[in-house]
């Protein structure tokens, strides 16, 4: 049990710093998932409802994007935001904003893909039913969101889970700067590299606990609204 005591002790000793790291993880990934949902849900509904030239290509792009390697996203965002890059004047590299941008790019295809699948899986009669009630376009989309809400919660959970646990992109564009851009995953990498396995394990457990708690929350929302 001494290993666990040691881990707890190490955690308590750096509680302040740890809370900052945990808070930044939640802030960055939280902001990113909100943006990804705001972009991804309408895009997914649109792709699910309309047929147009190039749609198949777009869907292929979305499906590919669902498995986008985070380090590639990190590289692209790095090159865009570096001082010599096209957006260098914004001086965003190595800031939480850069990390949010990278995570939005990682999470959005997941949200689009899951929304798209959900809209297409709805009973075709639902569409007719809503439209026959004389719904405006806006009301129609809102109704679809309500019908597909179970899947949208799944999109939220999947998107958030993928970015909060991601390390490659945030390391590249955030820089793992203590007190500024250090998040749970990059802190784990640092502690492991330094041989502080106790602390690394403790951080890992904390990250898992966080994922568990959030998914429990999402699931209870999802399953309640089912009834």
């Amino acid at each position, binding site marked *: 049990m001494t290993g666990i005591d040691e881990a707890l002790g190490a955690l308590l000793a750096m509680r302040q710093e740890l809370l900052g790291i945990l808070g930044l993880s939640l802030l960055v990934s939280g902001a990113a998932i909100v943006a990804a949902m705001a972009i991804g849900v309408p895009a997914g509904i649109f792709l699910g409802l309309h047929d147009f030239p190039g749609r198949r290509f777009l869907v292929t792009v979305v499906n590919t994007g669902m498995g986008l390697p985070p380090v590639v996203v990190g590289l692209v965002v790095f090159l865009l935001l*570096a*001082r*010599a890059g096209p957006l260098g004047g914004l001086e965003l*590299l*190595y800031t939480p904003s850069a990390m949010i941008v990278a995570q939005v790019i990682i999470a959005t295809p997941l949200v689009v893909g899951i929304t798209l699948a959900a809209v297409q899986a709805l009973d075709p009669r639902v569409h007719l039913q809503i439209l026959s009630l004389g719904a405006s376009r806006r009301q129609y989309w809102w109704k679809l969101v309500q019908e597909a809400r179970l899947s949208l919660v799944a999109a939220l959970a999947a998107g958030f889970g993928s970015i909060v646990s991601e390390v490659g992109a945030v*390391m590249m564009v955030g*820089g*793992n*700067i*203590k*007190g*500024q851009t*250090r998040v749970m995953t*990059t*802190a784990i990498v*640092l502690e492991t*590299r*330094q*041989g502080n396995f106790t602390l690394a394990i403790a951080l890992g457990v904390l990250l898992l606990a966080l994922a568990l708690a959030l998914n429990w929350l999402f699931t209870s929302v999802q399953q309640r609204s089912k009834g």
Partner: protein
Amino acid sequence: MGFASRLAFALLVLGLPAAPSGAAAGETLILATTTSTQDSGLLDVLLPAFEAEAGIRVKTVAVGSGEALAMGRRGDADALLVHSKTAEDAFMAEGFGALRLDVMYNDFVLVGPGADPAGARGSDALEAFRRIFEAGAAFVSRGDQSGTHRKEQDVWKRADLDPSGKPWYLSAGQGMGETARIASEKRAYTLIDRGTWLALRRTLDLEVVSEGAKDLLNTYRVIVVSPEKHPKTHVEEARRFAEWLVAPETQKRIGEFGREKYGRPLFVPDARK
């Protein structure tokens, strides 16, 4: 079961011929060293020459100085090539080392943005650090307890300054290359070893601010692990390796290394005459 019978049993199990021809099979040596000597390519030049001359095979384990010394303590290495004065002193004082010799040094350079907001250019290391501190100019630290990080902390300490917690003091917790990249993008100062600087300077928007001071030297020493605590270490082979490293011929090789590629040597031979 005695040692001989255990050995015989092991050989039998492994299906090896029971009568290897003396020297060819035996003489090996485990060298624990720092990643910098390995990554710079110096060992790739030195070790084959030693192996050919002495007929001793060298197995290299490249880790940080701290980890290399720990291997020596456990008797897992026969010779160490490290650069961490304080930790080495403790190692020797506790009787883990039979012999320690200076081999070479490389140096660190303080680099920063061309605009030099702290006005530190041309000052010696302590003064430059002082000016950065007073100006509150951005400084990126490795922040990973590496040899370079220790060196940087050491310079702050000598200058009687404590930058930790200051908003302009960024602790990157990454390797030298990434840390330099952050400094370049953030228009910040950073302390970098000469080898990495020479290799990366073309891709960085940074200039040398201070160099050449004694405070920025980094001395590498070879330590022969004492057989007193770990009788099974290959002390004879290790001693031959240590003496070979400080021999005039080898020292000359060290002084030549990197001159062709970077226009100047990466390490300066430093064996006491």
